[in-house]
Structures are given as C-alpha cells and as structure tokens.
C-alpha cells in the first residue's frame, strides 16, 4: 500500500464515495436530490464503480496517474451536477447545490495532490555490469578520461574538466531538451573505483559510482555501475519516457556494451542498419541493411 498520506486519504475517500452509489443507487440519487429515474441510477452506479477503481489504484499503486484520473472524474461529476442543476425541478435543490459544492472542494484537493505529486522528484536507482577483457588499470584509465564518456554514453553530449575534481556535463533529455550540470568526483582510487555526484543546483540531481573488480578466471575486469538520480516528474516521467523508448535500464546496459567495444576494439561498431553508433538509440524501424547514400551519410555525420 502507498505510504503517501494524502494519496491514502483520497483512496479511502474514494472507497467511501464509491460504495453507496454501487450498493444503493436509488437512495444515493435521492440523497443528492437529482431525481431517481433509471438513467440517473445507472449513471450514479457507474460513477461509483469509477470511484472504486480510483481507490484501488491510489491505495495499491500509489501513482500520481490515479490522482489525475480522479481530477478527470471530478470534472465529469461537476458536468453532470451542473446539468442536473440546470434542469432541476426544485425538489431537493439545496441538496444538489450542497453536492456540487462538495465536489468543488474535492476537486481542489485532487488537483493539489496531483500537481504536487507529479512535481515531486522520485529517486531512481540503476545498476548494471559488464565484463571487459582488459586489466583493471586499463579500463579505469579509459573511464577516468571523462572526455571519453560521450563516445559511449548515448545521452551525454559533452563532458568538460573544469577544475581539480570538477566537471561540466551536457546531455540530451527526452523530447529534444538539453540539460547541463556540474559534477564533482567524490572518490577516485586508480584501478578500483570512481564516484561522483552532481553539485548543488543541478536540474537532475545525480550521483553514482563505477567499480572495477577483477573477473574470476583471468577474464579481465568486471565493471559495476550504480547510478542514483531524481527523475523529474517522478514515476510518471519514467513511465512516459519508457513509452517513448527511453528505458533507462536498457540505456545503461547499452552504454556499457559500447564501453566494452571501446576498451576491447577501440571504437563503437556500426552497421548499415545502425550507422549512428551510439546514436542508434531508436532501435526500430532502423535504416535498412544496405549502404547509405551520400545524403544519408552527410546526415549521420552532421547530427
């Protein structure tokens, strides 16, 4: 169950608002004074079912998506009640007005919850590992030249050293945006570990470390990466990004595969289908597996 108090409260409120119209639709429509014809009863029963669905979503999943669903439901209820007021026959008008005022109040709480919970940053942890047939020192050295990172990290466009242990990063974000931040190295043990974290004011707070461990059986070095960052828009943002093919776990795995290529063979492998190397992020549909024409090559080089 969710541990967000507001979501939990709204979830139970949904249960409270959902059960009566489902069990006793006739009594409920009479209670809010909107007439008890069969159409009103069916409508109010459906509203009850909707409330129970939102309750389940809020209590079990605890995702802000369900708060936005509630906002949508509130607007629908306001519409229904407004129509009921307009066509009202006068009996129980006061109760309908009270119901309308109540829904306005609930809508306010829902909008507040949805906006704040969506803005809230959700921490995200990623881990990945790859084995590279090179010594710890070799892979450490390759990684430590941080200017190399854009060669294999799909989203990182530039890393510039700006001080003793300070670097400036520029990366592309979903929907064509660019983000920049400064980072500092917090631990640097040659051949073993590099750790870093973004300094104050970074738009996406992040920290991480990469450890270089000897692989058993003289197979080279295991590289273990841990990233910890706060996703803007939290889980909702992650879900939207995933929908657009930007699964962060997959990205990190692919980044490490390209690092392995750099370490073992000196460059990132290209095919006719994926001529962009690390830019071949969007996997399907690809360029057809035939040589690129002159304009296509120019376009690849220019991006």
């Amino acid at each position: 169950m969710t541990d967000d108090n507001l979501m939990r409260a709204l979830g139970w409120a949904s249960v409270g608002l959902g059960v009566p119209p489902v069990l006793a639709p006739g009594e409920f429509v009479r209670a809010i004074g909107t007439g008890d014809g069969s159409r009103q009863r069916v409508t109010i029963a459906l509203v009850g079912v909707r409330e129970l669905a939102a309750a389940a979503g809020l209590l079990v999943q605890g995702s802000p998506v369900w708060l936005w669903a509630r906002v949508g439901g509130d607007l629908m209820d306001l519409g229904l009640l407004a129509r009921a007021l307009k066509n009202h026959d006068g009996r129980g008008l006061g109760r309908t007005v009270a119901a309308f005022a109540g829904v306005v109040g609930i809508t306010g709480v829902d909008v507040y919850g949805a906006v704040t919970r969506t803005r809230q940053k959700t921490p995200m942890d990623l881990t990945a590992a790859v084995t590279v047939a090179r010594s710890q020192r070799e892979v450490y050295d390759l990684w430590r030249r941080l200017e190399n990172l854009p060669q294999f990290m799909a989203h990182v466009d530039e890393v510039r050293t700006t001080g003793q242990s300070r670097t400036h990063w520029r990366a592309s974000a979903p929907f064509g945006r660019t983000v920049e931040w400064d980072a500092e190295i917090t631990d640097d043990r040659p051949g073993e570990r590099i750790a870093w974290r973004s300094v104050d004011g970074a738009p996406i707070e992040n920290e991480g470390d990469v450890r270089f461990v000897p692989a058993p059986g003289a197979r080279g070095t295991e590289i273990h990466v841990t990233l910890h960052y706060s996703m803007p828009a939290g889980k909702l943002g992650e879900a939207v990004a995933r929908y657009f093919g930007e699964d962060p776990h997959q990205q990190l795995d692919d980044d490490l595969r390209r690092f392995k290529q750099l370490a073992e063979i000196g460059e990132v492998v290209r095919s006719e289908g994926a001529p962009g190397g690390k830019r071949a992020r969007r996997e399907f549909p690809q360029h057809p597996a035939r040589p690129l024409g002159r304009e296509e090559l120019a376009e690849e080089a220019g991006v």
Partner: protein
Amino acid sequence: MKANCWISPNRVQVRDVPDPVILNRRDAIVKITSTAICGSDLHLLDGYVPTMQKGDIMGHEFMGEVIEVGDGIDAARLRVGDRVVVPFPIACGACAACQMELYSCCENTNPNAGLAEKFFGHPTAGIFGYSHLTGGFAGGQAQYARVPFADVGPLKVPDGLTDEQVLFLSDILPTGYMGAEMCDISPGDVVAVWGAGPVGQFAMDSAWVLGAEKVIAIDKEQYRLRMAEQAGHLTIDFSQVDVRSRLLEMTGGRGPDKCIDAVGMEAAHGSAPIYAYDRAKQAARLETDRPYALRQAIMCCRSGGVVSVVGVYGGFLDKFPAGAWMNRSITLRVGQCHVQRYMKPLLERIQKGEIDPTRVITHRLPLGKAPYGYDIFKHKQDGCEKVVLMP
C-alpha cells in the same frame, strides 16, 4: 551497385543501391566475385525470422577481391588486391567469446545487442544480411560489400583454387563439418543426417572424413538422396518408409550412434496430420519453429548418443521430447557455426582433395536472376540443390 534485397515475405528483388563505404576503421570493401543462396536465407524469405526490413540486402556466403581497407587494418594481415572468402559471422577477435573460438557468439559485433538479448537471453554476433536481430549488416548478394573486422575473419585464398572450390568455406562447409565434429565420432559409429540439402551433404562428407562407419541421409527429395548416394552415403526416403523402423533395421536395433539435424525450423514431414499441426501452430505464431527433424532425431538416436544441431532455429518450439532426451542420456550439441575456427583446416582438406565442395552446385546464375534462384531453391524445382550467383 546492384543488390538482392528483401522486400516482403516471399519477395526479393534486385535493386540499385548506393555503393558501400568504410564505416569502421577495420572495415574492408570487397568486390564480390561469387556469392550463394543459403538454406537459411529461405527462413528470411519466408518471413519466419523477425526484424527483416524492406530493402535489407540478403546474403551471407560470399567472396571476392579487397578493393579498399580502413586505416585500422594492418597491411601484414590484409591488403588491397587480396582475394578472400568472408565468414558469415562477424567477429571482433578480442572478446572472451572470440578468445574461446566461439566466433558466432562474439560479444562486440552486434549493434542491436539490446534487441537480440530479448530473443536469445544474451546477444549473438553480427551476421551479414541476416535480419536486424543480428545487427542489420548489409549482405553479400551484391556487387560489393563492406566487411567489418576484415583483419579477423576473411581467409586469403591461395592461387590455383577456383571460386567454386572455396566459396562454401564462408558458411555451409564449416557448418556441415561442425555438425559432424560435435558428434565426437569414434570408429564404428553410424551417423544419420536429417536433411540432404547442401549443409546435410557436407555434414555427411565430414562424418565420413572423421571416421564414421556408415553415413545415412534422410530426406524425401529424390534428387537430393541420389546426390548423397553418389557421394557414397546410404539413404532413407521418409516419404516412403518409417524412418525409425528403417534406422533400427540398418543399425541392428541400436539406433544411430550420432544424429545430425541439418533441417531446422521449417521441417517437412512424412505424416500429414503432424505436419498440419506444426504448420498451423507456426502460422498462428503459437510456436515459431517446426521441430520435426529434431524430435525424430532424439527419438531415434541410441541411448547415450549425440544429437548435433546445425539446422537453424530462431525462437520457440513445443512437443520437445525431453523425456527421451533425459531418460536415455542423449547429449544435445548445438551452435551457429564458428566459421573462423574451421576455414584453414578445411581449406587444407580441399587442397588435399579430401572434400570436394563443388559437388553440391546445381545452378550458376547471374546476380540479376537471384529471385528466380530463390524460387527454384525454395520449391525444390529443376533439381535445385545449391545456387551460386555471379555479380
């Protein structure tokens, strides 16, 4: 240049496409002198391998002359003017898999590794002209091809050997050979080979070269069985007799010691209802592969024997006889061929006259007639066993 391109299931077309250029430092551009259609190209043609795209150049069996090399190629290894046969798996030579000579499992050459691992658990090597699942590399049924890691895979051909003698070092000869090698053949062994297509024929020849007592070809195409017979092998026509009874008869009731599946995912079948069952499941995508030959090989193999699989499987199958496999201590050995491992030793066998790869060639066509070649090969018309294309 002209190239044979995949258009849609059951349709290929020779089209004008741009000439290849160097994309990586260890690439070479090869002017192709001979190329061939492989049985596994038919799986792509039929649309059973996912991730084919319109316009993909087909073909992974090719050879020719090096006309350009990238600046990362050591001149001691490869130069412009060298005549080379190109192995179908693209291998880097540096990763752990390549160090273990598991070239078709190279860890570095598939740019679509993230996709491949979703199908296979772990990614496999890049392959020329063999869908985007294996990297989206342009194939060799063309006038020119870009060959990555040209200093690792391609084999320089000594003077005095014709294209036809060495072309099949690119795939089917090593594939058939690996099928026999995985059987660990000892003197006295009876080896049964399902499928008398080109790979099956070479598996039979290789089993013989490796010391098998008897080699038995199983197929239903008369001309393919005749070809096996002419090479000195025994035959079973599965459309006429029950394979298991016949094999028991030929092996004193033991069953073959070693069995090779050179058929793969689109097996034909002697029993109409079982064939219809697998066909229907495959069409409905309930299973991707029709494993009839594999099932029969496992059921027929003697207890403690080896079933070696070089026919191509791509996805999932059902009615796998796990009971027979487990209870009778059968060893299953498999693998997409690690061609680079076998090219040199097999070249020597060709030079010594121990194996004659040209015996399977039935059709020589210009590249422009590739679609016709696919058609007769697929429908087994005009006695088609192996098509060589000349660009």
